């Protein structure tokens, strides 16, 4: 779709943009649940909220839901509300190969979702490269990061990369680095971050996490990215991200493993 976006951009130079008022039919608020656990953290979080009108500036947290987490051995933990829609419990760390089920009960409806923790993939290396001026159209002269990893042989591996510089995590709609192995199963991959905002200077600390995702979680993030990234052209029919929550709840439950690597720019 970016291709079409680019074409339209080339052709239409005379276009103009403005902010408009639109009339949108009302709808009932829907519950939103976001759960995240991993192999390595002691803290995990579950957030429960409701949708609000599109031009609203407030949030609508749900603090009186009953939230529990169960693994496939039958161990269950109940999570306690700590305010602002957040639910927590004591120490916990996820195990590779386990499947977890998160259950939320609110206003008489039970919502549940599951996620399995995959084996982590270690990154091969993080590099920096110097790109001279006029090497690639639109790329300024400077130092840029490149990350190498090798995909596991066999289709079905899903990844998300989290990039941070000087302890600032890149977390905008453009920072969803999601990779699958449909076109490049078992090959070594290089992720080149040549955008202006990734330009590095000596002394910068680069940190990269490589998350290994459950397939439906990857699907969720990918459809989420489709929706929130503002393309030039509308990418088909807008829809909600593909969620596996039961009873129509929005959001995701992500149980994942990860590897981490970092580098100080010389």
């Amino acid at each position, binding site marked *: 779709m970016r291709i079409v976006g680019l074409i339209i951009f080339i052709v239409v130079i005379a276009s103009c943009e403005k902010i408009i008022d639109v009339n949108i039919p009302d709808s009932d608020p*829907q519950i939103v649940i976001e759960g995240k656990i991993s192999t390595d953290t002691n803290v995990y979080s579950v957030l429960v909220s*409701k949708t609000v009108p599109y031009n609203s500036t407030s949030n609508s947290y749900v603090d009186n839901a009953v939230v529990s987490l169960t693994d496939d051995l039958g161990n269950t933990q109940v999570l306690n509300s700590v305010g602002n829609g957040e639910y927590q419990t004591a120490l916990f760390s996820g195990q590779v190969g386990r499947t977890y089920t998160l259950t939320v009960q609110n206003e008489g409806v039970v919502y549940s979702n599951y996620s399995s923790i995959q084996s982590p993939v270690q990154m091969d290396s993080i590099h920096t490269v110097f790109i001279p001026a006029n090497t690639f159209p639109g790329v300024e002269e400077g130092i840029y990061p490149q990350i190498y990893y090798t995909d596991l042989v066999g289709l079905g591996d899903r990844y998300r990369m989290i990039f941070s510089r000087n302890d600032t995590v890149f977390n905008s709609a453009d920072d969803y680095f999601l990779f699958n192995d449909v076109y490049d199963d078992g090959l070594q991959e290089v992720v080149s971050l040549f955008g202006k905002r990734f330009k590095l200077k000596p002394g910068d600390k680069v940190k990269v996490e490589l998350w290994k995702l459950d397939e439906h979680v990857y699907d969720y993030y990918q459809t989420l990215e489709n929706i929130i990234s503002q393309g030039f052209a509308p990418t*088909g029919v807008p829809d909600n991200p593909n969620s596996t929550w039961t009873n129509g709840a929005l959001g995701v439950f992500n149980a994942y493993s990860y590897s981490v690597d970092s580098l100080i720019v010389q």
Partner: protein
Amino acid sequence: MKKITFLIIFLFTSLGIYSQEYTLSGIVEVKTSAEPVAFANVYIVELQKGAQTDLNGKFSIKLPEGEYTLKISFVGYDDYEESLKINGDKKMTFKMKAGKMLDEVEVLGEKDDDKLKDPTAGMVKMDVKDMEKIPVVFGEQDVIKTIQLMPGISSAGEGSSGFYVRGGSADQNLVLVDDAPVFNPAHLLGFFSVFNSNALSTVELYKGGISPKYGGRISSVLDVSMKEGDMKKWGFDGGIGLISSRFTTGGPLKKDKASIIISGRRTYADLFLGLSKDPTFSSSKAYFYDLNAKIAYKIGKKDKLTLSGYFGKDVMKYSDIFAFNYGNATATAKWNHVFNSDFFMNSSFIFSDYVYNIQIQSPSGTDFKIKSGIRDYQIKTDFVKKIGSWNTLVFGGGAIFHHFRPGEIDALSDQINDINIQERYGWESNVYIGDQMRIGTRLNIDFGIRLSMYNCFGPAEEYLWDDQGEVTDTLFREKNKAYKTYLGWEPRFNLSFMINETMSIKAGYNRNYQYMTLLSQTGSGQPTDVWVSASSSVKPQIGDQVSLGYFVNFGKNSMFEASVEVFYKYMQNQLDYRNGSQILFNQQIEASLLQGIGYSYGAEFFIKKRKGWFQGWIGYTLMRSIRKVPGINNNEEYSARQDRIHDINLVLMFDITDRLTLSSTFVYNTGDAVTWPAGKYEVDGQLVPYYPSRNAARMPDYHRMDLALILKDKKFKMKKNKETGEKEKIEKRFRSTWAFSIYNVYARQNAYTVSFEENPDNPGQFQAKQLALFRIVPSVTWNFKF
């Protein structure tokens, strides 16, 4: 089968009552060029009976013995009149002379009561010359843009070459150029259509009442025929505009026997890119071109061969990182045979191809090529046989081989693997029979039936999937073996009844099958949209339409014409996508598709002033187009994107002087039905829009006004007669016209897209941002002819 047998018996037994009749058959040609005159009206004054010439200028009429006055009329030509004595079968050639007012043709050149009598409700016929006065974007005349100004037909978006007919989607229109289907009629993302008006002679659009000889799409047929070269002398015409230029030349290869015409067009806005000092721009390209050619050859008196072709391509290149080209190619070889004055045949071999190529060289070294397309090979034969003075029988058949190539990726670096989406093969064949009955002077009935069959051929891999669209099994289909067959009975029926000389009512019903569907990302048509074949899981679309119309002429000399038509259309097996489907490069695309029903209904109001120094029309369409697809919108009904409730078109043309014409168009339509966020929430640190229902919101209303000023040069020049020494008026051979036009005169910012984003001044709040393509687009074109 019983029904068909009955039909044939019925047809043949109703004949032969008037055994004392003779056949007058003839060809109407242009006097100076021997080019056939299509759609000319032939009229026997005494009997109030008439016929119309076909695309080859031929007609025939049954007449009892007697003396008659024959009149032939056609827009732009002097009326032809001749007294005839009929005492046996007669064959004649009629030569029409170009009229004095050749340049001032009427829009939709027809005889006053033609439209009243024609049983085909919902037909729009245009002479390409009629479009000259109507303003268009970038000053380029365009049949598709002009046809979008008629009621029941609306543009698929700002500047789009796609169009919606009576609530159907853009891929439900069969677009034919000399019988060959054009898979993507758009250039430059739709701002130009593939139809270079210099190369065309007639344009017909059927929004209902589709003849059994057409098939394969459920909403409409746009039948465009290319001009034939002049059989007598060479001529040239062309136009030079700000964005593109075109040039046409045609003439005899062998006088009165063979002719050729070649027409070309190219845009050149990108030539300025070469002047740029920035290497990124100087090595970029963006242009398109078209080439039309047609050769006609008469063999004896009974046969004619024509060979025509169209070739067009869009090329875009952004430095070395991105190259994109796409285009159509069509070819038609047609043999036209006259058995006798009552019996004609057209037999054709047709080829059509659409392909797009993308090459990407990314900074990270991921280089690849993409190729995708569709190709058709077709044979068909049509017969027309007149039986008695009441019936004209049309029958024939044909077969099309479809080759679908949804896409392949060719990796040029080792960071990506090759991928090849499986190709699909289908045979679409048909036979049809129909009868056009003229009962007395008041009642006309056209009816017929078409039988179509679609066979899916291997090799193919088909998939089985669960309710979520996850593939659970693969079925391997053998090579050259039909693994799925669909059969479609397509009845067609049209009736017109003349209440009196100026009023008629019409009714029609037709059913059409469509065995291929365009998977479109936006609904407005992109070059990268993919055609998908019917298969075991994707059932063919079926469209049923009923329509009823009232037509009236009034005013002095039938100066005005008006009509009201109502329609109801029911569409089965309409495609929609599962949430978040990937359309491009999806091996298992069929698992992403859902099928349901659609229906549309509406009323079209039309009034036109067709004579005098001021001409024009106003059309208003009130319409709904609804879908219901299980799995979408909680299984409830929702508006189709093209559910434009109100649609208004106004066209005005003023002949200020003989040489100066001012014209204006105004269009208004309700905004498209779109899916917009009813709410928002936070996930993963992102603000996310919430979409509870499909197509529940509306784009802002669309309206726009355009103006054009056409200035012709003087028709005559003064020249000294060498013998007498006196000055006299001589008609100039070289003629030229200036066309100035302004698109979107009052600079309305019509929304092309609306997107939602976070308000930078108030983080956490969403706001709607509209993108408008044009404010005001002035253009100038100089057209010439010699």
